[in-house]
């Protein structure tokens, strides 16, 4: 960029980890520790409240006087609620399964349909391709709120309410995913699939054996983004379902909170079981996930 200025020579570079640089690093380290501490306080309270017996929930103490594990089996419907002596009759495991099943289904379908369309928009040559693509992209601007209402009417007319496919099908394609993967596929050198075509490969073979492996970072990024979005989706399942066998976790938590919201220790046990697996997943795969999120969130 800039040439070294002709003038007084710059101060001699300090060895790393000495003097002000080291002091700066220590300040940064302390600031980071403090921020992390502040951010984690709600989680701390959540965990501690989930181990408290009913009588202690309203106290300021973080460490319960008589820690108990009972809240967990109660939420999991293995023990009756000690207050009322009745089972809560929740389907916690089932909600988990639904969430993961739906998220996987949506992710697989969406990545596949997006990759195929992206292939047609980037590696195949046909008249008007880019114009069609622009028109296709323009619809991305319309927010989900607008399409939600007519989609609900469509689902009512198709009698898709309270079904898995009613939840999966509308999410099985995505203009954004097509856009992301098209950008990825355009950066793959065309000589590769031309060589494959000269060897007599069909489009499907080129797609499956040449382009898909090379587009893997993009596929993973889209997959992560879609999975998280699908796992977190709340509005659509909420309006589509009224059968608690089919609830995903998000809607299940709402049902749990609106029925047992006064029993904070039970709600917190459920929240812990909801959030802690996510934390474990994130910590394990965080390198992957951060890359995927960074790539996937650069929309528009």
């Amino acid at each position, binding site marked *: *960029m*800039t040439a070294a200025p002709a003038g007084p020579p710059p101060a001699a570079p300090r060895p790393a980890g000495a003097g002000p640089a080291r002091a700066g*690093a220590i300040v940064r*380290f302390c600031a*980071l520790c403090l*921020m*992390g*501490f502040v*951010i984690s306080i*709600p989680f*701390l*309270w959540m965990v501690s*409240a989930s181990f408290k017996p009913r009588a202690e*929930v*309203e106290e*300021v*103490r*973080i*460490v319960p006087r008589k820690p108990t594990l009972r809240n967990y089996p109660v939420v999991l419907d293995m023990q009756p609620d000690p207050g009322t002596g009745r089972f809560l009759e929740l389907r916690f495991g089932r909600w988990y399964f639904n969430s993961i099943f739906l998220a996987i289904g949506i992710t697989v379908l969406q990545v596949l349909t997006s990759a*195929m*369309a992206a*292939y*047609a928009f980037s590696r*195949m040559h*046909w*008249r008007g391709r880019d114009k069609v693509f622009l028109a296709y992209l323009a*619809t991305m*601007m319309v*927010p989900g*709120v*607008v*399409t939600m*209402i*007519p*989609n609900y009417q*469509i689902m009512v007319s198709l009698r898709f309410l309270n079904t898995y496919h009613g939840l999966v099908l509308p999410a099985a*394609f995505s*203009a954004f995913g097509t856009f992301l993967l098209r950008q990825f596929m355009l950066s793959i050198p065309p000589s590769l699939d031309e060589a494959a075509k000269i060897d007599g490969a*069909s489009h499907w073979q080129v797609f499956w054996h040449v382009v898909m492996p090379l587009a893997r970072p993009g596929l993973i990024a889209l997959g992560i983004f879609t999975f998280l979005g699908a796992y*977190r989706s*709340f*509005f659509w399942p909420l309006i589509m379902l009224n059968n608690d066998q089919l609830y995903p976790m*998000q809607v299940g*938590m*709402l049902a749990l*909170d609106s029925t047992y919201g006064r029993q*904070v220790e039970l709600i917190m046990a*459920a929240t812990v079981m909801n*959030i802690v697996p*996510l*934390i474990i997943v*994130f*910590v394990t795969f965080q390198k992957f*996930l*951060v890359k995927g*999120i*960074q790539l996937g*969130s*650069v929309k*528009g």
Partner: protein
Amino acid sequence: MARQYKERRRLPEPAVFGFLLPNFLGFFAFLLFPIVLSLAMSVTNWSLRPAVELEFLGARNFVDLLGVRASGGGVAAVGWAYIAAAVALFVALAGTMWSNVAGWRGSRIGGVLLSALGAAVLVARIAAGGGQGLVISGLVLLVGGIAAMRREGASWDFGPGVFPPVLLVVAAAGLRALDGPMWASHELRDPRFWQFLYNTLYLMMGIPFSIAGSLLLATLLNHRLPLGPWRKRLVHTGMCLVCGAVTMLLVGSLGWPNVALLAGVLWLMAAMGLAFNIVSFRTLFYLPTFTSGVALMVLWKALYNPETGPVNVGLGAMLQGFGVGAEAAKEMLPQWLASVTWAKPALIFMGVWIGIGGTNMLLYLAGLSNIPPQLLDAAQVDGAGWWAKFRHVIWPQLAPTTFFISVMSIIGGLQGGFEQARVMTQGGPAGSTTTLSYYIYNKFFEDLDLGYAAAISWILFAFIFIATAINWRFGRELEVVE
């Protein structure tokens, strides 16, 4: 045969349709057709109630949403003049922003006008009383004016940059003058729409805080900490853990288990930082975003509970520690989600907590790593301190990222607020946390009035479209880096 083949080549090969088919089926069925259907719904009284007969209404849904109706002997001209002044206000606001970004000449004089108007509004508020809205708009004008004046390199001469602020001042004066007669003779057709629009915008006030926090965290996380080789790190981590254990035992044995636990957590955080460097902090900061959803809303609802939640229990204990009586302390504590005043700030705070270390921070980290190191080195050589480096190198280099994040946050904020309203407050108390998206949900899912809900959603789309258009117009300009 050969000729036939040639003719066919002008059309796409059949394989193209094969590849596009699955995607386009979904595209037509769940995106394009619904868009058309939604437009159709918004001009009818489409309802899921079987008793309602479908009727074509034209623009009546939109008029009902945005319009006013005369009540009593009003003069129609007053209403029209008022609307004209409001439109002029919006045009002037857009023009002011535009002149600032596009560097029109004369924007500094405009800045003086703006801040004068802001000061006048604030004085009017102090002298005559008025709502929160007046304070906020006065502050916005004041800050906007000062920001416009601070533009470097803009001249003080008259130029086109003066016109938007002049229009703003005139429009504001017109609105103020017509305010009394207008509301004496007219009433809003759907006052709730305006209330909920205000709520939506109010809740978006958390965005700047969230963005500033993300930027701060990203700058802290940008470089790895110089922690030495792994052997040294291991020893340090071990020492940290031992220190933590000793602190916990010591403080715990003094009879303060809570302090002991918190201190232990702090030591644990330091140990993690020593072991995994900035990755551990990045992971920690991202957790609220990653786990966000109904479960976190439920958690915060419990935190904010005015009787049993730790926020109020802790505040109450603190007040009593300062010698306030138990009853008096109870009186002083805010009711958070149950209070019209405190519900929105509570939600904003939660939103900042969730979003501060989230995707915005990751985008800033990506942006920071793209800054050419020579620039920072050159600044270092020139003797720039950390603030000068931030102000003159990092901040301008991050301008495209900041702009992108702001626009995305605004688009998200306009559509947002549904989850928290549904899970935490049911839109209450007295509709004070109902946003436009929750209003749409209520209209269509509770009242089954799909036509009206579709009309609201198109108005929301208009706002989002404006934000996107601004992004297109100015986002590119910022990416030009000298």
